[in-house]
């Protein structure tokens, strides 16, 4: 069969060869999974969440399994933005895939400084993590109110020379309100959802399983919530939305595109199946073949009500 299917998408100036991106924090800086497949097959890679200075992260255990999902409390362990630029970008640039820098901070100034540094670095887009549930300061504090988001985004917008993606937390009453605040403040795109705040207890020891007590829920379990939020948000804003939360295969990708996402990220599923990312791309392509669909844009927001 001759294959004329066009998988390419463009997210606010960020062009991706296909709409499947590795989700931040689940793919390190790409090195580990490069042993399994050619990273150039991916639409993009959102690297592990970066901070100005190196961070050690939270005490173990950091992972707990839950029904069809996992909790993590890694807590932004990372080598710092400078080590990323020096040691990781050169490796990633060997592959033909978009590099998305995921940036966190404790203060608005941190975020500004991160964006200033990353704007000069060889990355294709910046994803502002305003939604990590695993750190005490920053992030969630800004990310769970419209005013917090407006403040951070409008400040970094002025400094940002790359497509600016704002990542939203699902742990809020009205995600559309936050999405609109980010859009109004100048975000070029939104990504959602980050993890749902959760907890696991070991009845035998009567202790929390996670060293940090609470953690972020991801994986198939959260898919219905993620899909709902992507649907709501993409109706509420005009900027593109990158959807994620429990995506494991091509059918899941199609569902998120139909709900309104212009691209997707895949995370937790890759822990179980290291080929989840490429199989998501292949599954999407197969769906398009079977459904006479020649461009991803035909699917985006294509939900029939």
């Amino acid at each position: 069969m001759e294959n004329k299917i066009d998988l390419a998408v463009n997210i606010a100036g960020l062009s991706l060869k296909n709409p499947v991106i590795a989700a931040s924090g689940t793919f390190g800086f790409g090195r580990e999974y490069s042993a399994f497949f050619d990273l150039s097959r991916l639409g993009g890679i959102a690297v592990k969440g970066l901070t100005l200075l190196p961070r050690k992260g939270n005490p173990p255990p950091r992972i707990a399994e839950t029904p069809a999902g996992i909790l993590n409390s890694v807590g932004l362990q990372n080598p710092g933005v400078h080590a990323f630029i020096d040691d990781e970008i050169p490796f990633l640039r060997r592959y033909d895939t978009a590099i998305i820098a995921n940036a966190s901070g404790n203060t608005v100034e941190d975020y500004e400084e991160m964006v200033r540094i990353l704007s000069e670095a060889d990355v294709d887009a910046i994803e502002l993590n305003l939604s990590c549930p695993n750190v005490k300061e920053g992030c969630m504090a800004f990310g769970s109110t419209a005013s917090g988001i407006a403040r951070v985004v409008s400040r970094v917008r002025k400094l940002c020379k790359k497509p600016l993606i704002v990542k939203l937390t699902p742990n809020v009453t009205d995600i559309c309100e936050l999405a609109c605040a980010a859009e109004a403040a100048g975000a070029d795109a939104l990504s959602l959802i980050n993890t749902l705040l959760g907890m696991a207890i070991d009845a035998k020891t009567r202790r929390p399983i996670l060293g940090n007590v609470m953690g972020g829920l991801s994986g198939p379990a959260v898919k219905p919530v993620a899909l709902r939020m992507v649907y709501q948000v993409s109706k509420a804003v005009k900027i593109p939305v990158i959807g994620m939360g429990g995506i494991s295969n091509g059918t899941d990708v199609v569902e998120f595109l139909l709900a309104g996402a212009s691209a997707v990220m895949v995370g937790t599923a890759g822990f179980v199946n290291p080929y989840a990312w490429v199989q998501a791309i292949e599954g999407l392509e197969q769906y398009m073949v079977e459904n006479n669909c020649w461009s991803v844009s035909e699917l985006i927001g294509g939900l029939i009500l």
Partner: protein
Amino acid sequence: MNLIHRVRAIKQLNEDTFLMTIEAPEIADTGKPGQFVNVKCGGPHAYLRRPFSLCRIDRERGTFDIGVQIRGRGTEALSRFCENDPIDIMGPFGNGFSLNREDRRIAVVGGGIGVFPLLQLLREHPASEKLTLLGFRNRNQVVLEESFQNKSDELVVATDDGSYGARGFVTSLLESKLEESPVDRVFICGPALMMKHAVEICKAKSIPCEVSLEERMGCGIGACLGCACKVRLSDDWDYAHVCKDGPVFSGESIVFQE
């Protein structure tokens, strides 16, 4: 990379422990003692893979064994596999034990399911004298004694309740054995508390030792930073990762938690 391999045999070792033989030539070829594989256990409730140490490798047949104790939903599901079933396994991962020619005399110290990785270590280690100390809760928990016997110059089994072999903790055995005659290196795998004590004993005698750690894992290959363990730096500490920097660490480097 092909992840689908085949179960060749399952052998019950005791009430809740079994040995599974898996045909996977590439893993058997490249696997080293102390490394682990990450297994999709199946069943409706185990979402993540589960790590198990290489227990015995048969490179000629292209198979390896893992010893598994049923502890929860994943290992329970694994116990239901049958001969010839396909099984989804990634690996081998991790660093493995050191195999130094200079270590002429070694001791291996295993507790409970911690004994499993030590068998392949004994099989491959170039040392000329190998002392094996194994501890179990009670007589019913003793596994693989003959296999260990065959690969050791001396084997002592202890049980906590004295129902088999020596009575008491394997760490006491270690202490008295090292008293009798020192070794060049000690390899330790078992419950955290046991490893902590064993390391202290080695330290007191200035004998280098290696421990194989367990931690809950996400990816198993170093991407998620889930499997952190605390390690000593010269004047500070940091987190290392069991799946990539370990599971084997020098005993001195580990900061054991209470």
